[in-house]
């Protein structure tokens, strides 16, 4: 049973822009992030990484490191307990304990350059680094597999020899393809045969990185009583707890994960890398606190890129209506199985009302870092493919690109490619808002000499997440509210969650004190990911606030010597029999009734409501250099109800700029020996302030029936449309089509020169 709500319309707190509660700490340098953790007697850890993309480990000699002064412990995979071949949820990813343990520290093989092979703990960071470098490893170097085509070729080296692939239900050994699956409905082939126009294209794209500015880190104390305390920059403390406990073979109840501020994640901080290593180093160092902070090169070489790969896309149309669509989504999982191809398959056709479709997904191992979630994982790659072909269909038919999308838009009742039927969704409203926008109505304008301009449009979808969250409230005698919740705050969610309780209670949100406690001190809460936090943890806060009101009615019934059901509560005021009292005034009178009132609520939401975005990109191409400049950008998005409009808009703007980096610049440039050539922020060129214009937003509010305030997750879908919107703008500017990302200056010049 899924609860649904009639949308509320009159708000006092929702829709305002209060200053976030953690803002002061974050503009004064006081906020404690993972790298800032101190503990008495703290020592440092470091790791040795593989210089080869694919190799068998023949031997590891740690004796020189162990003999160094100041070294407390040296660690290899042999120090880990045998992990179960068991899958646990890690938010937007699934973690296989055995394989992810081998990803944290290599067992008998290294699967990518930068794979951790050994670790040390030493008196300071410098000594730890020197000791790690003193470890000698002998490798048998193997041929690296660097693309999905190479991975699927007949003579491909097998990366994970224990893997038995699931190919449409058939068990297949000796393969780099971990999974092939299919969603299909209708007679796709017959529909193509009867279509007026069928266009088929194949697009390719490189791996790219989430690019969070804070590197991964972990500090751990594994004390002699067997209790393990961890601090680690993460999108979800409970995920660190379950993964660390699982990889170390200890009960989760023995692990306490303390919350620290997180310096960006975008999906890439749902997996653990250093927490189990810090824990084992601490144990081997006699329970000393051990801290590791990852260097930037290793962040690129060894943590969470989004999958690259290849997508074949075929779409048919008759009389302006889509008839059929067929796609092969081939995504790189990296060195171990588990890419975002499952989510890509859900999202790929979700913008369109299709009478028939066939979606085949391939999860493919390559000798690159194990991929991780990145903002709407899988959807940007899928969106690039489908929107590229839709754009060509519109060009071929000579129709308005927004009207065509409106004529074929998914709406309430449409079945998604995997069979799920949509509830109320806002794609049509977004398309109409885009069509009526000043941007769409404005001419492109004339480009300066030597440059050409183009405009692109694209739409995209993300299903959003629900899941489990907890919120505790305590009304203190001064009328303020202590709020505990379990969601890592990466972008102001302490406040967007507190605002929902504030709306119920009629207490100013400034009178809330939100905290994010450790995993021993708050009920289970899933990761900040899947655009779930303001929606799900917000709903926990909403429910806890209603419980608090119920509790206060009981207390007031004692004070007023009346019956509970005679007491009304509205706009922060309790009334009964002509008496009335404000909630904050009542807070000061609770002592005789049992002290401060508390309430707690946990939710587990099966569904989340869906997110759609439509974006328009104007871009200028320098015809001599191929350099592109985005000159105007508008992002339209159905946000359900913007709880904190400034921060909702910030999510959209940030997603757009990440998507533009993906479209225009960012890539893993892989050399022949399987190494990443551009492993620094200098060479992995993320957008800077100088590269971007202001990002205009139009927030459409189609209330989500699954939330009392109509809230939808907003964080992820905005990264998807830029890939195609920017590429189609370049197509219009240059008169050439581009099927490979990124559309970097070199690629534009090569196309112009017929290379």
């Amino acid at each position, binding site marked *: 049973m899924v609860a649904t709500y009639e949308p509320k319309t009159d708000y006092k707190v929702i829709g305002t822009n209060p200053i976030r509660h953690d803002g002061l700490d974050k503009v004064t*340098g006081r906020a404690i992030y993972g790298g800032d953790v101190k503990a008495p007697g703290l020592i440092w850890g470091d790791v040795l990484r593989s210089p080869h993309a694919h190799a068998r480990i023949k031997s590891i000699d740690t004796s020189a490191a162990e003999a160094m002064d*100041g070294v407390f412990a040296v660690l290899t995979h042999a120090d880990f307990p045998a992990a179960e071949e068991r899958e646990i949820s890690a938010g937007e990813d699934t973690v296989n304990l055995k394989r992810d343990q081998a990803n944290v520290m290599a067992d008998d093989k290294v699967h990518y350059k930068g794979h951790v092979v050994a670790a040390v703990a030493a008196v300071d960071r410098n000594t730890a680094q020197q000791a790690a470098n003193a470890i000698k490893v002998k490798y048998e170097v193997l041929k690296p597999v660097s693309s999905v085509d190479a991975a699927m070729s007949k003579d491909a080296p097998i990366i994970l020899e224990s893997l038995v692939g699931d190919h449409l239900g058939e068990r297949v050994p000796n393969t780099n393809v971990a999974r092939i699956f299919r969603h299909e409905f209708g007679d796709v082939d017959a529909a193509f045969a009867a279509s007026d126009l069928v266009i088929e294209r194949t697009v390719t794209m490189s791996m790219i990185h989430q*690019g969070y500015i804070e590197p991964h880190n972990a500090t751990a104390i594994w004390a002699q009583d067997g209790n393990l305390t961890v601090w680690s920059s993460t999108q979800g403390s409970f995920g660190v707890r379950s993964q660390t406990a699982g990889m170390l073979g200890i009960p989760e109840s023995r692990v306490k994960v303390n919350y620290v501020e997180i310096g*960006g994640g975008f999906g890439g901080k749902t997996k653990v890398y250093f927490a189990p290593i810090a824990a084992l180093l601490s144990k081997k160092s006699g329970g000393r606190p051990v801290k590791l902070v990852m260097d930037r090169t290793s962040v690129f070489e060894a943590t969470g890129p989004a999958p690259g790969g290849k997508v074949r896309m075929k779409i048919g149309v008759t009389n302006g209506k889509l008839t059929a669509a067929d796609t092969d989504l081939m995504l790189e999982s990296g060195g171990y199985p588990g890419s975002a191809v499952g989510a890509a398959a859900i999202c790929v056709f979700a913008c369109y009302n299709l009478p028939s479709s066939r979606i085949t997904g391939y999860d493919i191992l390559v000798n690159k870092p194990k991929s991780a979630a990145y903002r709407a994982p899988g959807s940007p790659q899928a969106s690039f493919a489908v929107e590229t072909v839709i754009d060509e269909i519109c060009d071929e038919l000579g129709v308005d690109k927004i009207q065509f999308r409106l004529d074929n838009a998914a709406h309430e009742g449409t079945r998604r490619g995997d069979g799920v039927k949509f509830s109320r969704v806002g794609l049509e409203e977004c398309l109409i808002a885009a069509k009526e926008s000043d941007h769409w109505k404005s001419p492109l304008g004339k480009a300066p000499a030597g440059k050409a301009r183009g405009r692109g449009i694209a739409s995209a979808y993300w299903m959003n997440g629900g899941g489990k969250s907890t919120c505790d409230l305590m009304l203190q005698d001064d009328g303020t509210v202590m709020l505990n919740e379990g969601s890592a705050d990466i972008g*102001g969610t302490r406040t967007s969650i507190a605002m929902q309780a504030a709306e119920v209670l009629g207490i100013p949100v400034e009178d809330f004190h939100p905290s994010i406690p450790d995993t021993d001190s708050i009920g289970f809460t899933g990761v900040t990911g899947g655009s779930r936090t303001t929606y799900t943890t917000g709903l926990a806060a909403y429910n806890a606030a209603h419980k608090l009101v119920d509790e206060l009615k009981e207390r007031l019934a004692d004070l007023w010597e009346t019956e509970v059901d005679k007491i009304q509560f509205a706009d922060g005021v309790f009334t009964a029999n002509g008496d009335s009292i404000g909630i904050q005034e009542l807070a000061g009178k609770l002592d005789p009734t049992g002290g401060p009132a508390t309430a707690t609520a946990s939710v587990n939401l099966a569904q989340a409501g869906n997110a759609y975005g439509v974006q328009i990109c104007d871009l200028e191409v320098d015809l001599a250099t191929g350099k592109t400049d985005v000159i105007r950008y508008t992002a339209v998005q159905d946000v359900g109800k913007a709880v904190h409009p400034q*921060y909702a808009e*910030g999510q959209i703007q940030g997603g757009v700029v990440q998507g533009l980096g993906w479209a225009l610049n960012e890539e893993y440039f892989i050399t022949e020996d399987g190494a990443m050539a551009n492993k620094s922020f200098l060479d992995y060129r993320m*957008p800077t302030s100088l590269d971007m214009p202001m990002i205009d937003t139009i927030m459409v509010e189609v209330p989500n029936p699954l939330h009392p305030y109509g809230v939808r997750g907003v964080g992820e879908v905005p990264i998807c449309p830029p890939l195609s919107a920017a590429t189609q703008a370049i197509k219009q500017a240059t008169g050439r089509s581009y099927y490979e990302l990124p559309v970097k200056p070199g690629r534009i010049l090569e196309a112009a020169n017929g290379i």
Partner: protein
Amino acid sequence: MTTSSPSKVHVTTTINGQQHELLVPPYMSLLDTLRELIGLTGTKEGCLDGNCGACTVNLDGRVVDSCLVLGAEVNGKNVNTVEGMATPAGLHPLQQAFLEEAALQCGICTPGFLVAAKGLLDNEPSPSEGRIRHWLAGNLCRCTGYDKIVRAVQKASK
């Protein structure tokens, strides 16, 4: 204690107006000097190769990446960090503007942006949008898309 650590360098420096006398390992960056020796962890580590700007500090009036400066180099110099921006009278206008304009999301790049932007406004109180974008191009932010950061600096401009 460790054979790998050579002897240390005697450094006298002024950090956020307060004089410090330090013994700094010769290889130690100003970033680690601030974070590990003094305990000023507001200055953040992002890349250690001068490309992200998270560790931006002001050194004798110049905006620098503290990961590219040695602690031993700041002898006799003035270092100002994010911790020195607010005064007993209140927040610096840039700090207030960042709060009001929602110019931070995760906040890890925020100290660097604040120190860098202050370096601009100290010398050019009314910069154009283009000038702000150019000046801040050495500081990476992955969350905001820069829109609200630029608006916050504009708000704090005269």
